[in-house]
């Protein structure tokens, strides 16, 4: 089984590495804020049609645009859910979504989290799915990428106040990158058997003679951007475990690749923009190292299974099959689990709540690391660059110089912004979890008592605050309490990070770029990569070790102590 897994992982990494390169070349000019030669006229026309004047923005202006744009998006999505009963394209006649759920879902899709407290096929009309959720899938992804572009510009521009134009960035990313990729992927998915229709649900009689309803809908078009934009919000409740969303082993592989494609491409675009591709490779390799190690850990934990069940002769020592699609098997499930939580996608092809204690801890921890291992589109890169700044700061001091990254001195203001970023998500996760396990409405949602129940809550807040969106499904989160708490966690986890990131970008862009000498710390070699990996892991471990000890670690030790 491990051999099968390693082969799959090897193929996956090979395909990813091969595709990340052209993806980087595709994204780099956009990151620099321009389009290549012959597209310039088309671009000018497009911007004119959208009423956008491509003028540079300072960081405050850029941040304001991000906030206004997303706030409007959230309000619109909320209104659409509440009014869907009155609107067309609703063959099943779905009524208004409940207030708490609509609030939570609106924030969830705008923040690229796609936490789903509802079941798609029994809650959302086709119009809401297409005009509301799918559109936000595009726009939230474009927002993340735009912010990453702004940070890249911060590192590479010299003594400039200009971070580029948010509106132009969102438009270009959507039209030149997300749309074409989504169209191609959607067509391939349709070919493989993913649904794409606007029909009403079909009822038929099964072989056993029971009546069964099959949910229909425009699935493929939403499925493509769900992966490419690391959104993860499933059309159906079962998400990518549903055969109409993810029918074959090939679609499974393509979906995993689609999740990592843009985050990986962005690292290379970063290297190109920095004028030193090795800088991009270093980030890419650091991400890959953590990803591969975590995937192996999940696979190892899952194939070990549960010794208590093994002792009873139930699983025959074949590992933990609970909650896994037999169609995909243990290897493809383990890899998918790691991919979807390393990136802030949150699509699932297996039930995370059914993972072994350690197998469930790894995805949880990947989210707690801040979704920087490839991470969300854009957000993964800017999150990782924050860690790079942190690593460079401490290590830079150790080489006896004022720390610098890509020739930019890291000074007090930058550290303030880094501090805000590394403080925000732990605060949301830990305080949210603490409130939930203390208060009655929080405790009411737990499906399992004890350590596993604790893990469910911790997982939910880790997922929300880091904008992942996957869940330990055992938690009944569609309650006013969780809808509100997780909604707030998602909003702050997204924008309380984006604003300091943009502030740092603005501050960096205004600085001089220092010449690199033999005395400056190299940020492309193996040493830097290990330093970056070390910083991410150390901060993640120190922040979450006590909480994890009371959840999955205690559970694991209990099971294996018998």
């Amino acid at each position, binding site marked *: 089984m491990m051999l099968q897994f390693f082969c799959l992982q090897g193929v996956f990494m090979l395909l990813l590495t091969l595709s990340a390169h052209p993806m980087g070349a595709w994204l780099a000019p956009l990151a620099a804020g321009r389009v290549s030669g012959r597209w310039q006229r088309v671009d000018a026309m497009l911007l004119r049609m959208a009423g956008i004047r491509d003028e540079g923005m300072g960081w405050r202006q850029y941040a304001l645009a991000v906030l206004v744009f997303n706030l409007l998006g959230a309000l619109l999505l909320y209104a659409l859910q509440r009014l869907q009963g009155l609107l067309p394209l609703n063959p099943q006649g779905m009524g208004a979504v409940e207030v708490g759920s609509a609030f939570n879902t609106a924030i969830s899709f705008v923040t690229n989290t796609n936490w789903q407290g509802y079941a798609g096929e029994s809650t959302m009309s086709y119009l809401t799915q297409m005009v509301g959720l799918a559109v936000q899938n595009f726009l939230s992804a474009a927002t993340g990428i735009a912010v990453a572009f702004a940070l890249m510009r911060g590192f590479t521009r010299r003594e400039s106040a200009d971070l580029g134009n948010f509106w132009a960035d969102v438009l270009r990313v959507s039209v030149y990158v997300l749309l074409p990729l989504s169209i191609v992927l959607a067509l391939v998915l349709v070919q493989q058997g993913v649904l794409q229709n606007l029909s009403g649900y079909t009822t038929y009689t099964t072989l056993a003679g029971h009546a069964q309803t099959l949910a229909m809908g425009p699935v493929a078009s939403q499925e493509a951007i769900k992966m490419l934009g690391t959104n993860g919000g499933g059309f159906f409740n079962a998400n990518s475990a549903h055969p109409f969303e993810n029918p074959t082993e090939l679609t499974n592989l393509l979906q995993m690749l689609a999740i990592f494609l843009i985050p990986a491409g962005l690292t290379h675009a970063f290297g190109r923009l920095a004028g030193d591709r090795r800088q991009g490779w270093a980030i890419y390799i650091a991400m890959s190292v953590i990803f591969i190690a975590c995937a192996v850990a999940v696979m190892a934990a899952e194939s070990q299974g549960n010794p208590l069940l093994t002792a009873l002769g139930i699983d025959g020592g074949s590992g933990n099959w609970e909650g896994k699609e037999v169609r995909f098997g243990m290897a493809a499930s383990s890899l998918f689990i790691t991919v979807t939580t390393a990136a802030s996608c949150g699509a699932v092809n297996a039930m995370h709540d059914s993972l072994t204690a350690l197998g469930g801890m790894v995805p949880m921890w990947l989210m707690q690391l801040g979704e920087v291992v490839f991470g969300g589109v854009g957000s993964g890169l800017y999150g990782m660059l924050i860690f790079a700044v*942190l690593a460079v*700061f*401490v*290590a830079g*001091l*150790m*080489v*006896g*110089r*004022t720390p610098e990254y890509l*020739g930019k001195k*890291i*000074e*007090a203001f930058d*550290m*303030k912004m*880094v*501090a*805000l970023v*590394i*403080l925000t998500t*732990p605060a949301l996760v*830990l305080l949210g979890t*603490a*409130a939930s*396990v*203390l208060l009655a409405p929080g*405790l009411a949602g737990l499906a399992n*008592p*004890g*350590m596993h*129940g*604790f893990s469910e809550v911790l997982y939910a807040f880790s997922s929300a605050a880091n904008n992942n969106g996957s869940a330990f499904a055992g938690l009944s989160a569609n309650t006013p309490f969780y809808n509100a708490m997780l909604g707030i966690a998602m909003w702050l986890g997204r924008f309380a990070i984006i604003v300091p990131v943009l502030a740092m970008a603005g501050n960096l862009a205004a600085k*001089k*770029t*220092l*010449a690199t*000498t*033999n*005395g*400056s*710390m*190299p940020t492309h*070699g193996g*040493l830097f990569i290990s*330093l970056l990996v070390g910083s991410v892991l*150390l901060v993640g*471990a*120190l*922040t979450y*070790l*006590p*909480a994890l*000890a*009371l959840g999955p*670690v*205690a559970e694991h*030790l*209990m099971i294996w*102590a018998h």
Partner: protein
Amino acid sequence: MGALSEKIMTEKKISLPLFDPALLKPALLDSVRKLALREQLKNPVMFVVYLGSVLCSVLWVMALQGQGDAPAWLTGSIAVWLWFTVLFANFAEALAEGRSKAQAASLKGLKKATIAKKLAAPHRYGAGFTLVDASDLRKGDVVLVQHGELIPCDGEVIEGIASVDESAITGESAPVIRESGGDFSSVTGGTRVLSDWIVVCATVNPGETFIDRMIAMVEGAKRRKTPNEVALTILLLALTLVFLLVTVTLLPFSVYSVNSAGSGTVISLPVLLALLVCLIPTTIGGLLSAIGVAGMSRLMAANVIATSGRAVEAAGDVDVLLLDKTGTITFGNRQASAFIAAAGHTPVQLAEAAWLASLADDTPEGKSIVVLAQRLTRSPAVLHEGEQSGHNTLHALQQGLTPAGVSFVPFTAQSRMSGINLGSRQIRKGAADAIRRHIQQQGGSFSTVLQQQVDDIASRGSTPLVVAEGAEVLGVVELKDVVKPGIKERFAQLRQMGIKTVMVTGDNRLTAAAIAAEAGVDDFLAEATPENKLALIRDYQKRGQLVAMTGDGTNDAPALAQADVAVAMNSGTQAAREAANMVDLDSSPTKLIQVVEIGKQMLMTRGALTTFSLANDVAKYFAIIPAAFASTYPQLALLNVMGLTSPASALLSAVIFNALIIVVLIPLALKGVRYRALGAEALLRRNLLVYGLGGLLLPFAGIKLIDMLLAVLGLV
């Protein structure tokens, strides 16, 4: 303290042993004094520990009354060790400050009550003066200082010339010449006029003098956090808040766990406090200010005074060093390399005269002439055979004696010549224009051929020294620049550190290129003028490089002001010293390199201790987490990888380790991480290995050791 200051005064370098017993007692007292709330607020990390100690003490009192949630002895022990943690950090800072104060005390010796002779109008030599106290002198007052008197204030010589003993601040015993006009016109208060007189115009008000500023800097009274220190403090504060969140939320987590497991007890407040203090970066937090003070102190020990800590830090960042050729790359004192005889004289005659004129010349130039002359003529004594008396005289001179009829003429600031009177023979050597004046007075003439030779030598980058006997010129001695041995290796090291060296010289391109190649500098600026020096600095800065330079003249001031790190020679003018951000008391041109190293060392020490402090936390988790939750989830005992005796001993060991490690690291904080001239990558690898990996592993051993000790002593 008295004995100590005396000892410092007698040493040239103002340096101290690490734990001087005379300093320990006041430092211990200070560490208690620093428990004042106002002092603690300055350091956010240690302030959290401080609050923790107060809270824990309150809990202890409550526990003694039977209201505690943990045993009273455990709460008490934790409280005591938390207080020790605060005290140890205070002690580190107090000790660093104490060492600085001791250095400052030696400077204060210069501020003896001095009586000044304040001149009345027209402020010229000969005007009447009143005796006033030096501390009453204001900027613009004019004073007369005569031989044997202390100069009462920092100022500018406006009239007269004198030799001044500045050894009190420079440690250099040879007196220096100070005269009005030119680059040697500034004087420092507290130095002593040895000969002649000068009229000095005070340039600063009392309390702002150079020495006052030095004392304030060194004592740390004016110490502000440097930019890097501020950035690091922000990071430490953020980490402290993260750990505060971690520990605060652990209480509800524990309540939930106990409720759902139905066993064990909720984690107690003293245990949470212990965990918090162990996790927050107390090691670096406690030593941070000591590192800063010690950095300034080390600079002081190298006889450099910085006007701000910012400048020291910037020194670590320098990419380009502009180095004056003379004194830095070559010996400022040039060495005789050739005798070029004037028409009608032989080189041997010239050599003999030069030898005689240099016998009493103790300068390196003079000695080098003697050496070269002896090599050229084997024994000058045999030259004048037949002149028995002359022979004897020469023989005596060779023995280092001064026979009758012989008198030496020393170099003076006015004549700018030196030489010997040997019976009727009057031999002089000196700069071309001085000798020209001399022989013209004697009725001789200075031929154009000779002038040509002098110019030739100068254009080669060498210095011509003309030798004359009576009214006749014998020839010219060429004094050549000699590149200092070892300087090439030094530059190679700097190159490896990523620092570029640029030689600055007034020489023409050809000469400069030859010396630059010999010395192995990366680049050179020939025919340097203040303007092109300034342009060069701006050029480097535009390319994103930080430039350091040394200077002394008034015309260096613009370049010094432009440079990122500017070291002025103490012997330099007031203008140069004002423009610079450091002053080198030794006026040594190579000091710049040392300053860069001290700057780097200070940053490295901070980085290393931060890394160490963070890496420590891993082991502390393994000690405290199983201990804290053993009653709720007994299976977590498996995480007790150190095999600590009991939950209580695990807790105490971690807290004790956390406090003691501060004391253990005080020497490192004060002395600084050892600096090596390596490239950034090699340096980082080394420091990561020592302080990162070391910081990860050491506490496992340390905590285990303390646990075993506690168990053996039967304390837990």
